[in-house]
């Protein structure tokens, strides 16, 4: 490339320009996405590593304990968490619809789809809070458990608590984006970026649900 530049021919100058624009040569936008979207992707990867570490830590203490409890009955726990999974997956579809409407500049429609997504998030939080309440009533605490190792409480509340915090933050984030987008103060890229966050929250639950609940069902 440098040799071509030295020759000084018009073709060589064009080659050099193309090289500078090339994604693999550190062109202006190597991933062909905006900086906000790239920033969110980098955050998601770092957060995915955090959740991976927590999921592995949960599995670690479970494997290392010979009296790990199996506390989740079909009713209410498994039914409730299956409904929560359905709600979260559906809220991802409504978020996709919001991003689609946003790209078409249908701002009011996008805000409505985001509101539907927020409703899904709030339903998830309420159902999960009820699940926590039932376990707390049965005597599970952060460092205490009525059925064997007290590590169950610590591992369960830390993992599901961090996820629920992400859902709660997501609902506030989506509310802010919907309001500002409807008023014309944000672009469709902002809606798309908030969608990435929401789908990630959904994705994390796809691992928590089987690992924490389905692998600890009470058969009787």
């Amino acid at each position: 490339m440098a040799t071509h530049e030295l020759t000084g021919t018009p073709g060589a100058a064009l080659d050099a320009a193309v090289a500078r624009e090339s994604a693999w040569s550190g062109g202006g936008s190597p991933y062909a996405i905006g900086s906000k979207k790239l920033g969110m992707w980098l955050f998601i990867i770092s957060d995915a590593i955090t959740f991976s570490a927590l999921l592995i830590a949960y599995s670690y203490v479970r494997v290392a304990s010979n009296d790990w409890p199996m506390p989740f009955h079909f009713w209410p726990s498994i039914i409730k968490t299956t409904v929560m999974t359905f709600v979260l997956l559906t809220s991802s579809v409504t978020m996709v619809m919001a991003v689609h409407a946003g790209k078409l500049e249908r701002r009011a429609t996008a805000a409505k789809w985001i509101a539907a997504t927020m409703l899904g998030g709030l339903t998830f939080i309420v159902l999960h809070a009820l699940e926590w309440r039932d376990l707390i009533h049965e005597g599970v605490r952060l460092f205490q458990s009525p059925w064997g190792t007290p590590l169950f409480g610590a591992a369960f509340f830390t993992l599901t608590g961090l996820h629920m915090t992400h859902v709660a933050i997501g609902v506030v984030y989506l509310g802010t984006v919907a309001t500002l987008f409807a008023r014309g103060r944000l672009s469709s890229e902002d809606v798309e970026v908030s969608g990435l966050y929401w789908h990630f929250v959904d994705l994390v639950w796809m691992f928590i649900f089987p690992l924490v609940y389905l692998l600890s069902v009470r058969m009787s």
Partner: protein
Amino acid sequence: MEQAVEHAHAGASTKIFLYVWFWLLGLTGVEVWLAYEHLAVKVMLTLLMSISVIKASLIIAYFMHLRYERRSLALTLMPALVFVVAMIMIFFFPDSLRLLHMRPR
């Protein structure tokens, strides 16, 4: 021309998103059914985690749109995650089995 292509792509996407949603719900149903099958823990864990990885891949590829982005983005992001998770699994996780055997009976 470009707008027409974009519109066609968006129209097809809505259909695909619903299709992916049905698959995700179906796989969730399979997971719940599996939980009540009397399988060995290792087999159950392998099956459930495999299904979860498929579900996560569907969400990343379609809902998070990574399939439609430039491939360099996925090649930058995913190896980092896989590498870190593999390192934790290889160097820390086997220690849990050692701890189990060290417990007084």
